[in-house]
């Protein structure tokens, strides 16, 4: 408990441990301090900037863990002060520590701390090293601030700030045209979602006269808001989550955002920011739960995104893009869970996903660091060369594929159970297919990168330094064990705790699905792995093996080869076709729509500039014609003689 002092003022030790939560507002402040210090002294600190960032996030992490432990025994703590008065309305600011955000605090500060550590190795030698750490600090501050906000307005403020942090970090390699474009795209696309969130928030405010979560829920409970209004606001707020969490149709920014440095992808685009959308829906869950339509919308969009992104992931060749599409797909899973009223399932998967996806990204970063390419066609045979990264990547792959005993297995199982019990058999089926695809493309990725012969030029391949591997090892451990906090076998501790003391949520606690779901999930994921094994591992093995052995085994091998061919012809052809089709929709429909809107706006702009001819007579004429128009309209409509 040495680190307590860092986050604790003098009376802390006297009053005892209850004071932890009272001062939880300090948690986001540490990274802010780091940001400010690096902004002011970054140039002088140079590479030492990393230690500033690491120390401050460590302080946040330790404090978050203490708060989490305290929250186990103590009730929710929150405090507010008056911040802004508009007319007769009083808006407050403050913070709150409940189960959900105590958990999120730990997840965010842990991943952030690990990414800070990892980046020290990864970003070594970059001339803007201190700037990178400053941005990381800013982002972590915003994300932690978002998590402890007790009201919608404050959430929205940090929500935007998180967007700024993401914008800066995606565009960190600003000399690359793609990075600039990606940063801009990410910012604008999420903004489109934010408009929905903002309008929904204001509408909700006018219904309840408050931004406070508690009061909103109370108003919903008391039936003060009409059901149609609840549906409308819930869906508007969900649009914000769609933008942030890369759900269809606002998902296109997320794969592009991979232009940022890989640790950033791990922090922002895997574990924290993109999960903010899911977090938002989770923290407003009682509102969503009050409207069946809203829940159904979420479930459908989530399920569709899950299968849609997974199918696109099948044909990607860029290691980070595969992971990006898998992130989109997994976020779809979480939305499906929440939409099927599986509150615990969604949050549980949010947690496990944060660990194994951060692990996968960091491991991918380690691979890229070693081979200096992101194209998986140019990799191969790295298992022997990257002795640590390989097994860690495998753990992550097993976890995300939902192989039994790994964390992803339990959370995915819970989601599938939620979808089934929630009465959405079709969505359940979609989720199951998506699980199959996930297992397939993740192992395709694994086999192509780590097995077979080395392709492309891989001369100086070496394992990453210790400060990159330690964070991965820690995440690897978590990717295995994190699932055991909520299992049908050893107790559903997390699920029970999350809904403890909250009647509205208690109905949406842990869901015990039938056993066959678990078996089906296992079978599906193993089938996916097996298929990938046959296609990307076995085939290359067979080729070598054939040349050296006799004819007796030949036919069998050939038969196996037929299986391959069969799969290739039927299953894969179908999925490839579908995935190309969906990709087509993605490119032409979604982007086309965006382009259309942009085109209209720009066309208007051009017309406006053209009218601005510089002729002063025109200006006067426009003004006068404008007046005449108003006056004439008034003469015809404006109640002459009433």
């Amino acid at each position, binding site marked *: 408990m040495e680190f307590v002092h860092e986050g604790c003022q003098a009376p802390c030790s006297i009053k005892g441990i209850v004071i932890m939560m009272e001062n939880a507002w300090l948690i986001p402040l540490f990274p802010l301090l780091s940001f400010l210090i690096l*902004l002011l002294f970054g140039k002088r600190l140079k590479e030492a900037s990393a230690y500033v960032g690491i120390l401050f996030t460590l302080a946040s992490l330790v404090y978050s863990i203490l708060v989490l432990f305290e929250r186990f025994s103590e009730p929710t703590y929150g405090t507010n002060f008056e*911040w*802004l*008065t*508009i*007319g*007769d*309305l009083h808006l407050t600011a403050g913070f709150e520590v409940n189960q959900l955000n105590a958990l999120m605090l730990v997840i965010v500060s842990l991943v952030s701390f690990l990414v800070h550590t990892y980046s020290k190795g990864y970003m070594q030698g970059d001339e803007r090293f201190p700037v990178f750490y400053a941005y990381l600090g800013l982002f972590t501050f915003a994300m932690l601030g978002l998590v402890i906000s007790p009201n919608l307005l404050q959430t*929205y*403020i*940090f929500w*935007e*700030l998180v967007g*700024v942090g993401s914008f800066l970090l995606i*565009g960190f390699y*600003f*000399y690359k045209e793609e990075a*600039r474009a990606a940063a*801009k795209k990410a*910012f*604008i696309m999420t*903004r*489109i979602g934010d*408009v929905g969130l*903002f*309008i929904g928030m*204001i*509408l909700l*405010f*006018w219904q309840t006269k408050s931004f406070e979560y508690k009061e909103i829920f109370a108003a919903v409970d008391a039936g003060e808001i009409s059901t149609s209004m609840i549906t409308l606001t819930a869906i508007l707020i969900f649009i914000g989550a769609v933008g942030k969490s890369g759900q269809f149709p606002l998902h296109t920014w997320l794969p592009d955002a991979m232009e940022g440095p890989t640790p950033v992808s791990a922090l922002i685009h895997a574990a924290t920011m993109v999960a903010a959308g899911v977090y938002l829906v989770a923290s407003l869950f009682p509102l969503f739960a009050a409207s069946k339509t809203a829940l159904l919308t979420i479930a459908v969009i989530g399920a569709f995104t899950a299968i849609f992104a997974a199918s696109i992931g099948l044909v990607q060749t860029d290691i980070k893009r595969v992971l990006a599409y898998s992130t989109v797909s997994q976020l779809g899973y979480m939305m499906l869970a929440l939409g099927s009223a599986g509150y615990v399932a969604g949050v549980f998967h949010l947690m496990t996903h944060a660990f194994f996806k951060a692990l996968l990204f960091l491991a991918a970063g380690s691979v890229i660091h070693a081979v200096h390419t992101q194209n998986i066609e140019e990799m191969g045979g790295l298992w022997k060369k990257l002795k640590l990264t390989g097994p860690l990547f495998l753990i992550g792959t097993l976890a995300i594929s939902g192989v039994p005993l790994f964390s992803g297995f339990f959370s995915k199982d819970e989601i599938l159970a939620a979808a089934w019990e929630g009465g959405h058999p079709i969505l359940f089926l979609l989720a199951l297919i998506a699980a199959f695809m996930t297992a397939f493309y993740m192992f395709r990725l694994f086999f192509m990168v780590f097995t077979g012969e080395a392709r492309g030029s891989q001369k100086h391949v070496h394992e990453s330094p210790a400060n990159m591997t330690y964070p991965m090892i820690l995440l690897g451990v978590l990717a295995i064990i994190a699932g055991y906090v909520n299992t049908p076998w050893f107790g559903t501790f997390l699920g029970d705790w999350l809904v403890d003391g909250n009647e509205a949520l208690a109905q949406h606690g842990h869901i015990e699905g039938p056993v066959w779901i678990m078996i089906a999930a296992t079978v599906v994921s193993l089938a996916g792995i097996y298929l990938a094994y046959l296609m990307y591992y076995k085939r290359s093995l067979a080729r070598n093996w054939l040349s050296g052995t006799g004819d007796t085994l030949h036919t069998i091998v050939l038969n196996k080869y037929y299986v391959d061919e069969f799969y290739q012809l039927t299953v894969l052809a179908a999925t490839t076709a579908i995935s190309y089709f969906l990709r087509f929709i993605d490119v032409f429909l979604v982007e086309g729509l965006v382009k259309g809107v942009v085109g209209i*706006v*720009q066309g*208007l*702009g*051009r017309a*406006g*500039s053209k*009218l*601005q001819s*510089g002729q*002063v007579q*025109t*200006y*006067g004429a*426009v*003004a*006068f*014609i*404008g*007046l005449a128009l*108003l*006056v004439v*309209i*008034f*003469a015809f409509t*404006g*109640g*002459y*003689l*009433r």
Partner: protein
Amino acid sequence: MDLETLKSFEWSVMTPEFIILGVAALLTLLDLFLPKKMDRRILGWIGIVGILAAILSVASLLNVESTSILDDSFTFDAFGKSFKLILLVGSALVMFLAISYDAKEGMEDYRGEFYYLFLSALLGAMIMTSSGDLITLFIGLELLTVSSYILAGIRKHNLQSNESAMKYVINGGISTAITLFGMSYVYGLTGTTNLFEIANKLAAVTNGQQAYLLGLAFLMIFVGLSFKLAAAPFHMWAPDVYQGAPTPVTAFLSVISKSAGFVIVIRILISVFYNAAPTDNGEGILFKMHDYLAVIAAVTMIIGNVVALKQTNIKRLFAYSSIAHAGYILVALTTMSSNLLYSIWFYLLAYMLMNLGAFAVIQVVTEQAGSSKISDFAGLARRSPILAVLMGILLVSLAGFPGTAGFIGKLNIFVGAFYGTPHYVLAAIMIATTVISYFYYFGIMTQMFFRPASDERKLNIPFGIVVVLLVAVVGSILFGIMPNIALDFLNNLH
């Protein structure tokens, strides 16, 4: 009326105006008698001292109850006090810009005039904040306008400056004619120029024909005054004039002149038309004209934001951005919510801070580059990181980002749009156009941070600019994080 009655008025409430007038006169004389060779910047400093003294005197008068002199031709009320402070602080900042302004051509002999014309324009604007009489309001407006004409053209050997002044005069003339025509109808219907008497008389109007004429007068006055606001349909002069005028003058036009425009619009529209010719349910003309205001606000926001996307000149871009901001404030005016005054006041305050700060940066960059292309901002983060970061904060505030004063301002207006009858369409347009505004504000950001510099020279930042930037950035953040300071101040006024 004899001398005793004249003496009985409390003339002390006019102290701020007297100070500005006195300093302006002093500067005129000094400019005449000081040796030709002497640097005229000293006059600018005297001007700043004068404005600060006026600010102090307003501050010391804050607790004075509402007073009026000479049949309301000067009224000192909470409205006047609060807006006068914005105008004074804004003018002080503009003076700092003016002192640091060092144009390439055409300003040599006219530095003295440059400073005291700002003061006379300020005097006009101040009169507009505290008068309850149409004639006085109009004279104040003209004093502001005429001073601005000259300021816009003060670089007489610069072609663009000439063009700018010319266009400003012609459009200004048209606008004045329209405004006066509208005012003459109001006078014709009531026979008085006193706003309060007008309001009383109009509240009793039930005749439909008179109501119709009032509606016409409303439209004419509003369209005429929209020239000052740079709002549709009288916005087209703004880009050309802003581009050609010297940068401090552009800053003045976009902030002080616009604020004064809103002040007079609120004064006249609210006091004259609010209760005029009420319908059976007690709603005045203003409510009937509601849709017209909404249309004007929507068109202004759309034009300002959309056309700004196509600009390559930074000053033109800010002209369109200032049109857009006028549109946002008009939304507040349209919705007529109970927090109308507060939301407009706060928005003008925030707008004053962020826009003047941005113009300070623009002035430094354009002076050094010798042109005012947006691409001159390329690589600013390398040439002067502090300047780039401060500009970044100001742009973020202009874009209305949470944590800045610009956000609170927009939030106030937005929340107001749902007061009473909700204005969904207007609110949606406001949000959509705000999103569009991100494109061009972030375009400047991209230039500053993500583009290589074409000109690697370090920028030297004059003292005046430092002051303006400091006030602007600190204010933008302070009022963004603790907006209640401003509100408490406003609530405590009498």
